């Protein structure tokens, strides 16, 4: 309960500070975006590329078994990639890579009393540490989601073309029947929301870190677990809402 309260409290503090001009520390935001977004791009690209190859093969295999046709591959893979796969995989990887790094960084600052020093200097630690990471991860989440969706879809097209005798225009034309602007909006919203969740949870654990190096390790582990669970629960909520609204 205490963890949830701390997370929501930190989220509230960030929202309050966002309209303030002094919270927008562009140098920090750019630095964090490069570390989180650009730095995660290679690993996310590789992971989602293979995810695209796997999912297309799996869907085609099941479809062939159940329906004795593979003509629905573009629609099924397209929707699955844009609504789920292209979002969940990069964001869960982002939790493991960026979320853990944020908790470890902020936690180390906490146990070495750097955050107390900031307070003594009259610098707000939330504005200084959390807001730039919040902005950077939100933007990165959205960008990485689109990148991963693009890569996954390209790999899905590759499998459909090489193994199931689809031509690229044929795949795209079939895809257009099933995928629309709503799926694209859904992708961007989910990417943005999950991107915003990661720094809040990570910083919350980092700021409440106690003890020495062991405390940092525990906080990092807990932060990754909580972020992963939070993303999965939020995924259900957003998917449910998107099917109702979009």
């Amino acid at each position, binding site marked *: 309960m205490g963890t949830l309260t701390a997370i929501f409290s930190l989220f509230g503090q960030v929202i309050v500070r966002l309209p303030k001009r002094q919270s927008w520390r562009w140098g920090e935001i750019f630095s964090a*975006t490069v570390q989180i977004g*650009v730095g995660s791009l290679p690993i996310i690209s590789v992971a989602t590329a293979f995810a695209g190859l796997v999912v297309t093969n799996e869907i085609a295999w099941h479809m062939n078994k159940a329906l004795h046709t593979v003509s629905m591959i573009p629609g099924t893979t397209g929707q699955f990639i844009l609504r789920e796969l292209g979002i969940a995989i990069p964001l869960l990887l982002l939790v493991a890579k960026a979320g853990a790094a944020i908790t470890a960084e902020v936690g180390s600052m906490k146990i070495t009393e750097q955050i107390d020093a900031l307070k003594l200097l009259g610098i707000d630690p939330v504005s200084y540490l959390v807001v730039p990471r919040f902005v950077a991860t939100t933007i990165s989440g959205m*960008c990485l989601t689109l990148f991963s969706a693009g890569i996954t879809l390209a790999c899905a097209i590759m499998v459909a073309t090489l193994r199931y005798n689809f031509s690229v225009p044929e795949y795209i034309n079939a895809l257009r029947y099933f995928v629309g602007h709503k799926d694209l909006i859904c992708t961007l919203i989910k990417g943005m929301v999950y991107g915003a969740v990661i720094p809040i949870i990570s910083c919350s654990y980092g700021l409440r870190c106690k003890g020495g190096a062991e405390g940092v390790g525990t906080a990092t582990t807990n932060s990754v677990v909580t972020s992963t669970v939070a993303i999965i629960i939020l995924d259900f909520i957003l998917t449910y809402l998107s099917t109702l609204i979009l």
Partner: protein
Amino acid sequence: MKLSNETKVGGLILGTILLAIAFAWLVGIQNPFSKSVEFYVTYNFAGGIEVGSPVRMSGIKVGKVEKISFFTPADPKSVAIKEPGSDGFDAEKSIVPLRIKVSIRKDAAVGARKDSRFYVNLAGIIGERYIEIMPGSMSAPQIQAGESVAGVDPPRIDQLISQSFDLAGKIKDFIEQNKGDITRSIELLYKLSGNLNKTLAWVDKSAVFKTDLSKLIENLISITTDVKRITDKAHTKDGEKTLKLLYDLLWRLEPLDSKNIREFFQKEGMKVHLF
């Protein structure tokens, strides 16, 4: 070369924007700056059309369904729209509850005329619904933006099934009520077919029928051969000349006094009677 953080972030955002544009093209989002014509098509039953369903003209995608709304007019007769090709208003169909807003490309809108027909069709193996516009005649006025036209209601499979159930029930009742009569009729038909079989077998075996029939066929063949020969001759030069002479003769005989002819035939008749 070491890139600055700003350049890297700029590259990431630029890449994302380009990807978003590519995705927008991929999923078929229409150019918001392109001009399209929007009008309404009314239905009593839309058969599963949804917002975003494609609109096709002559089999080509030219637009999509923008909005579906229920239409509750205060005075149904004042807004009842006659379906193109129908003779008049159907009192039962005077209320048109569904109004579908469609947007189509401006170049395709030239083919959307007042007498165009708007069918709800199915495509693909999962039965995706779309509106098919059959282009109207050039003499009919073009549908203008915001105008309403009547669509052709798709056949209702649920209604057909329920009607067939109803019909099956009626047939069952009829059979149960007239069970005796139907059984007797079937027995009679069975007997009749048996008798017919016997008769045909007798005819087949009968020598009289065989010889008479063969003679009859032979005679028919010789008659038709003669007729053919005569008609063939009629088409020759001599035949045509003879026909022309006969025609001239008849033409000359026509103005003769019919009274004298009648008298001649009467006298001839009396001679026949007396002698």
